[in-house]
């Protein structure tokens, strides 16, 4: 019987939920312990892909996106001279914006804890597929953070030549940093566990409406 097995209608197996939550907490310890030293390595492919995307779509703005440890450095083609944003050649240096990739990648250890606390099936395959989905969101998050940095750092020089309104950039940044990292692992886990005994039993009365 699965740890995620649902309660009967009288709730007699209610402790199973607590057992699942307990397992999530237990799995969080090794997941986060592994994530701390590995987070730079985990972020590296996403940063590389984001660099390819940003330099392709914003070749006149973004010079490169590099990773140093867990810190990403977004280097631009602009510098500052006499309090004005000018080309990097004129300024003699490039303006760059650092940000911490861990504010996005902590979704991976959280998802690992949820996934491994849910027994059954090909747990590694399930984890790999779920991580891939989170990875796509990680790239979207890196793009959102980058655009927000460019918007605030370069101001009109960037916004005036960019088709997306500032409000959209702001909301996508907030959504990508506040909502996605803690929520996406739960959504991916819920989707993958939708056939688990727990969710099946919970949805049994409502499945016609779903």
């Amino acid at each position, binding site marked *: 019987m699965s740890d995620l097995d*649902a*309660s009967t*209608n*009288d*709730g007699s197996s*209610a402790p199973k*939920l607590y057992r699942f*939550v307990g397992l*999530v907490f237990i799995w*969080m310890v090794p997941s*986060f312990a592994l994530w701390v030293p590995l987070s730079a390595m985990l972020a590296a492919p996403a940063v590389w892909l984001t660099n390819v995307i940003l330099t392709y779509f914003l070749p006149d703005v973004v010079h490169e996106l590099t990773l140093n440890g867990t810190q990403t450095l977004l280097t631009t083609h602009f510098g500052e001279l006499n309090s004005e944003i000018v080309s990097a050649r004129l300024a003699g240096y490039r303006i760059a914006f650092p940000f*911490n990739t*861990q*504010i996005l990648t*902590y979704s991976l250890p*959280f998802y690992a804890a949820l996934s491994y606390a849910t027994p059954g099936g090909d747990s590694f395959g399930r984890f790999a597929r779920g991580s891939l989905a989170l990875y796509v969101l990680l790239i979207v998050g890196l793009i959102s953070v980058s655009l927000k940095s460019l918007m605030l750092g370069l101001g009109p020089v960037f916004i005036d030549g960019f088709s997306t309104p500032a409000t959209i950039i*702001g*909301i996508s940044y*907030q*959504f990508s*940093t*506040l*909502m996605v*990292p*803690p*929520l996406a*692992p*739960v959504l991916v886990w819920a989707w993958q566990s*939708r056939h688990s005994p*727990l969710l099946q*039993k*919970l*949805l*049994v*009365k*409502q499945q016609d*409406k*779903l």
Partner: protein
Amino acid sequence: MARFIGIFLFVLLALFSLEMFGPVHEQVVEPFTGFLATLSVWIITLFDDSVIAYGRVIRDSVGGFAVSIESGCNGVEATIVLIAAVVAFPATWRQRLAAIVIGFLAIQVANLARIISLFYLGQWNFDVFTWIHLYLWPVLIMLDVLIVFIVYLRYISVQPTDGELAS
């Protein structure tokens, strides 16, 4: 299932955008965040009278350490997630309202624990404070939402639906 996902994402994005909308943020979110700071200080002063609050800031009047409660630390986003999930799932509106009210309280209890724990962790070790603030507490709050929603699903799965009540 597709209907649930569609409604969930729509309500989630709509409420999140509403939260970020300037007048709503200024008139609703910020006063609520200030209230949370005041409530946190009221709880802290039950065992530590050296703490004061002004606006969204909680400050230790002896050591000088202060924390400011910002977006993402007021439980509003977690409440939005819960509301979106509850609204998207078929139930009576009374059940939904009860879940949102009780869930909101459950989230805020966890959130007050977050604020108070971070206030003391920051005075003890700033690196630990940063780590737990940025990575651990958001996960714990989202787990709180998940537990509330699962408990809600378990509750309504044994309750009669609208159709059953009507018949």
